[in-house]
C-alpha cells in the first residue's frame, strides 16, 4: 500500500472520528437486529467493517458538499450527517425516514445535509458526483462532489466514463472506491485483470492512491489531501481503500462458501472501530473513561433513534404517486 500522506489530526478531530465510527457501527448493529426482528421490509446492506472510509472522508466535507453513494450507503449517509433516527425510520418504511419511506436501504436522500442519494444500481453515483463537480465549478464555488462505490463498480463503464470526464474537465470530485474484495460473492481478483484500483490514475491522468481502508487516520489523511486539491481547483482524485465487510452481503443472506471463516476472522482483528479506539488509548488522546462516555452517548442516541423509528407513522398510501413531476403539466 502507498505511503500515508500526513495531514494534521487534532485530538478533538480524532475523538470526533471515533464518535462517528461508533454512530455508524451501532446504527448498523441496530439495523441488523431490526432486520432479524422483521422490522425491515426489503434489503439491508450493512457497512460493518468498512466504517473508516465513510468517516475518514466525510470528516472533510461541509453540508453543502455533495455525496453520492450506492446500495451499501448507510455509513455514507450517517457520516454525511443524516441522523440515525431518519436512517432507521427509512428502513422501517416510515414517513419520518430520510426518503419518507420511498427508499429503504438503497435509496437514501437527504439533500439538506448534502446526502444527494444512494442507488440500488451499481455505477451511477460515480457519474452524478462528476456532475456535482461540474455544477460546483460552473457556479464558481469551492464545493466538492464525492462518489463512494465498491470494487464491483470498477469494472463498469460508469467508472471509466466518469473518471475520464472529471479528469479532462478538472472537476472537484473525489472518487472513493471501497474495495472490500467482493461484489456479492464474485471476487475482485476474478472480475478484474488488475487487482488494484488506486493504481489506475495514470491510465486516466488523475492522481490516485491506495490506502488502508480500515485505518481511519490513513483515510482521513488521503481524503484531506484530495478534498483540499479539489476545493482549490486542482481537479479530481481517485482513492482506493482496501477493506472488508465482515457481515453478509445483505442481512439474511447465506455466506455461500465464497470466502473462508479464516479470511473473515483475519479482518475482524483489524476492525476499524477497535483499531481507532486502541490508538486513542495508546496515544493517550483519551482515557478509558472518556472513550466509554462516547460509547454510552452513542448507545443512547441509537436506542432513541430506534424507538423514534418504531413509533413513527407509516406514509399514507394516498401519497404514493406524489412528486413524479415537480410541476403540473400546464404550469
Amino acid at each position, binding site marked *: 500500500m502507498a505511503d500515508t500522506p500526513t495531514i494534521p489530526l487534532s485530538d478533538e478531530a480524532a475523538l470526533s472520528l471515533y464518535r462517528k465510527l461508533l454512530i455508524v457501527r451501532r446504527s448498523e448493529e441496530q439495523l441488523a437486529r431490526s432486520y432479524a426482528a422483521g422490522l425491515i*421490509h*426489503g*434489503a439491508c446492506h450493512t457497512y460493518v467493517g468498512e466504517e473508516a472510509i465513510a468517516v475518514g472522508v466525510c470528516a472533510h466535507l461541509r453540508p453543502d458538499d455533495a455525496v453520492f453513494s450506492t446500495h451499501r450507503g448507510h455509513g455514507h449517509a450517517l457520516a454525511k450527517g443524516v441522523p440515525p433516527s431518519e436512517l432507521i425510520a427509512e428502513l422501517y*418504511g*416510515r414517513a419520518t*425516514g430520510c*426518503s419518507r*419511506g*420511498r*427508499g*429503504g436501504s*438503497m*435509496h437514501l436522500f437527504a439533500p439538506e445535509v448534502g446526502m444527494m442519494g444512494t*442507488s*440500488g*444500481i*451499481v*455505477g451511477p453515483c460515480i457519474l452524478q458526483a462528476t456532475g456535482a463537480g461540474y455544477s460546483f465549478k460552473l457556479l464558481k464555488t469551492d464545493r466538492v462532489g464525492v462518489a463512494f462505490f465498491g470494487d*464491483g*463498480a470498477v*469494472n*463498469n*463503464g460508469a467508472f471509466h466514463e466518469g473518471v475520464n470526464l472529471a479528469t479532462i474537465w478538472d472537476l472537484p470530485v473525489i472518487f472513493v472506491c471501497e474495495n472490500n474484495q467482493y*461484489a*456479492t*460473492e*464474485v471476487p475482485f481478483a*476474478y*472480475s*478484474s485483470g488488475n487487482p488494484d484500483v488506486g493504481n489506475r490514475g495514470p491510465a486516466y491522468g488523475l492522481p490516485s492512491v491506495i490506502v488502508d481502508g480500515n485505518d481511519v487516520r490513513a483515510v482521513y489523511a488521503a481524503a484531506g489531501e484530495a478534498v483540499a486539491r479539489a476545493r482549490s481547483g486542482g481537479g479530481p482524485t481517485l482513492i482506493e481503500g482496501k477493506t472488508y465487510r465482515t457481515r453478509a452481503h445483505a442481512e439474511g443472506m447465506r455466506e*455461500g*462458501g*465464497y470466502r473462508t471463516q479464516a479470511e473473515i476472522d483475519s479482518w475482524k482483528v483489524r476492525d476499524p472501530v477497535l483499531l481507532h479506539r486502541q490508538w486513542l488509548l495508546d496515544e493517550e488522546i483519551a482515557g478509558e473513561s472518556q472513550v466509554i462516555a462516547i460509547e454510552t452517548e452513542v448507545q443512547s442516541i441509537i436506542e432513541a433513534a430506534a424507538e423514534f423509528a418504531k413509533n413513527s407513522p*407509516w*406514509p*399514507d*398510501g*394516498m*401519497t*404514493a*404517486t406524489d412528486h*413524479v413531476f415537480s410541476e403540473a403539466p400546464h404550469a
Partner: protein
Amino acid sequence: MREITFMEATREALAAAMQADPTIFVVGEGIGVRGGNFATTLGLYERFGPERLRDTPISERGFVGMCCGAAMTGTRPIVDFMFLDFILDAMGELINQISKIQYMSSGRLKMPILLRGCIGIGHAAATHHSGSYYPIFTHIPGFRVVVPSNAYDAKGLFATAIRSDDPVLFLEHKSLIFNKGPVPEEDYAIPFGQARIAREGTDCTVVAIGSMVGKTLDACGQLAAEGVSIEVIDPRTVAPLDMETILASVHKTGRLLVVDETFQPCGIGAEIAAQVVDRGFDDLDAPIRRLNGAHAPTPYSPPLESAIVPNLQSIAQSIRDLLAE
C-alpha cells in the same frame, strides 16, 4: 403430477437444454458457484463447469454486447440479469444491435440469445429492483417477449425460448417464481404466440399478464358468487401477442378489461385495446378498460407499495364497473 416451483421448472428446462447442446452457456453475476440469486442455475455449475456458467463482473452492457457477438459466431448465450432492472445499462446493445443483426445481415446471421430476469413489484424491493419493462421490448421490433404466469407454462415456454434463433426475453415475476404447480418431468415446448384461456366465461373478457393472472382468477372466483361469468386470458407471450384468441373471446363477451402491473401509457393494454377497437369494433358492447400499476416509480414502504399495484379488490371493482357500462 408432481408439483415443483416456477423456478425449478425453468431450471429443469435449462439443464436439459444444456445437456443436449454444448454451445449453450450462461453469464451473470453469481450464477456460477452460487447458483444464481434466485437459484436459476443452482447445481448447474457442478455439472457444466465455469465456461458454461460464467460469473461476470458488474458489466451489464459489456456482457450483453459480448453475448451478441457470441450468438453471431456459433454459440447460444443466456444472459441471467438477476433483476431485470439491470438490463437498462445494456439497452444500446439490445435495441441497436441484438434486435437488428438478423435484419441487417439479411438473415445470414442468427441471434439465438436468451435474456432472463426477475421482474415486478413486491417484497419492498423498491424502485431499482421492481421494474418489468416488457412493453418496451414489445414496441421494438426483433424481440420475443415471454411473461409466464405459472410453473407449467414456465417450463414449456423456456424450452421454446432456448431453442429459438431469435432474441427472447424471458421474464419471471418475483411473486411467482417460488409458486408451485404441476409440471411434467418430460420435456415439452409451448409455442410462442398462443394464449391460454385460464378461465372460461361469457360476460366479460379479462386479459391478464404474468402475475396478474392469478390475482384475476381470484377476483373471478369472488365475482362468480355474484353470478358473474368472466373469461380470463393469459397471453403467455406479449410479443408475439395472440390477438386471435382475444378477439374471439371479445366476440363472445362484448367486453374487455386488460390487467397489467406495468405502466399504462403505451403499454400492453394500450396495444390490445387498439387492436380490438380496430379489428373487433363491432363486437364491443362497452368501453375497453385498462387496469395498471400506477404511473410512478416503485416506492419501498409497504403501504405505498401496495397502493400502486392492482389487487384482488381493484380488479374485481374494475370488472364490476365495466359490466355496469
